[in-house]
């Protein structure tokens, strides 16, 4: 078992499974966010459910946080090891001759996403914790929509969100399909699966960008 954990393939499997888990989470997050554009009342309802349901709060949320931590700690560990594997570099290295940019820069796109997650946690999670536990405010199942739209009023935040999602798209463009290769899941469905991962990598981040821009350009007028 310990041999398994320290092996390069096992580390890749951890990377792939945590990545796939985050991909699933992203789809769920997107679905909820989309309701903020098409059905604000549903958005309030679902947000309230997510914020107060004990299963979500005490089980799913910690699993999500663990998933993110495992993914980025492993990503950094792999990066350090990979740098050690070529201590003396090439004078000339034509990386673009044989591999796409997205595949060679997963650590960069990943770290930008991580930096964005910092801002995102501050914007929503820290605020939520303060509201619920520090200030001890009562439950208000109607506040979420207005709070969310308000967040996208400043142009700087909207721009940061858009940039982060472009980098997430680049991360997923390579990462989503790569995770199947890591798991050794290639069979007669692979070609179709590849197409699906590429569509997902563009469509979901583009959807998030749309939502951010939509709220920025349609502020709630008081």
């Amino acid at each position, binding site marked *: 078992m310990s*041999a*398994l954990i*320290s*092996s*390069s*393939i*096992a*580390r*890749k*499997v951890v990377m792939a499974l945590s990545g796939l888990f985050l991909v699933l989470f992203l789809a769920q997050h997107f679905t909820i966010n989309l309701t903020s554009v098409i059905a604000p009342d549903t958005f309030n309802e679902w947000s309230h459910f997510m914020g107060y349901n004990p299963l979500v709060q005490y089980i799913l949320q910690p699993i999500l946080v663990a998933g993110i931590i495992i993914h980025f700690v492993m990503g950094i560990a*792999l990066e350090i*090891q*990979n740098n*050690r*594997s*070529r*201590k*003396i*570099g*090439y*004078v*000339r*290295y*034509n*990386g673009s*001759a*044989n*591999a*796409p940019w997205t*595949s*060679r820069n*997963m650590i960069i796109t990943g770290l930008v996403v991580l930096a964005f997650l910092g801002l995102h946690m501050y914007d929503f999670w820290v605020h939520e914790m303060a509201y619920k536990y520090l200030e001890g405010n009562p439950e208000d199942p109607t506040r979420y929509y207005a709070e969310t739209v308000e967040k996208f009023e400043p142009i700087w935040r909207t721009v940061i969100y858009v940039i982060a999602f472009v980098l997430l798209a680049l991360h997923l463009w*390579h990462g989503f399909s*790569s995770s199947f*290769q*890591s*798991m*050794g*899941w*290639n069979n007669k469905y692979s070609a179709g699966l590849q197409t699906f991962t590429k569509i997902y990598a563009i469509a979901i981040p583009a959807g998030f960008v749309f939502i951010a821009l939509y709220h920025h350009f349609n502020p709630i007028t008081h």
Partner: protein
Amino acid sequence: MNLKLKVWRQSDAHAKGKMVDYSISGIDGDMSFLEMLDILNENLINEGKEPVEFDHDCREGICGSCSLHINGEPHGPDKFITTCQLHMRKFKDGDTIVIEPFRATAFPVIKDLVVDRSSFDRIQQAGGYISVNTSGNTVDANAIPVQKEAADTAMDAATCIGCGACVAACKNASAMLFTSAKVSQFALLPQGQVEATERVKNMVRQMDLEGFGNCTNTGACELECPKGISLDNIARMNREYLKANLKG
């Protein structure tokens, strides 16, 4: 053709090494890259200088000895060839060509452009074999029926010549393509089943011990491999490895 060369010179494994500039003239487009280096070395010897060490043997793309990282790519700009199969017509008069050894911590430089690829031998020795009774009642390999597709795929994997271009190209200096080819050529055949579980575990363990990097699935190895070894082999090895470990 007149060319400028920038060549890595390093007197031994412990020396620091540096790029040295050379000019060379009278190069014909029909010459191979190694013939061009032969001329460079003749010139150097005539000038009383130390010739450039580089690996080569068959000079027809089958032994895997010739290495060289040329203008930022293993085996130079062409695809599906070794350095001995690279023609000088791929370059233009006046070009500058940067020539470096394959770089990987697991491929230390011995001298100039020659690297020690015995880490590959040790991966192979860790499991790249089958047990055959040779004590007088050897069974003819053809006596065991093999499905045509499996035989073809195993043969494709077995065309790996162990050159190390996959490691040299990979941004992580990963040896997954080589190791997976050597695992696959047996994993697909009935003769390879006896040691299947131990083989993949031992070969992967040795690969990690040698200090090769992790695979990011960039696909650089497949494109630079002179034999076109497929990334499918890596997926197969990952699958075999997981299966072997889950079995215990």
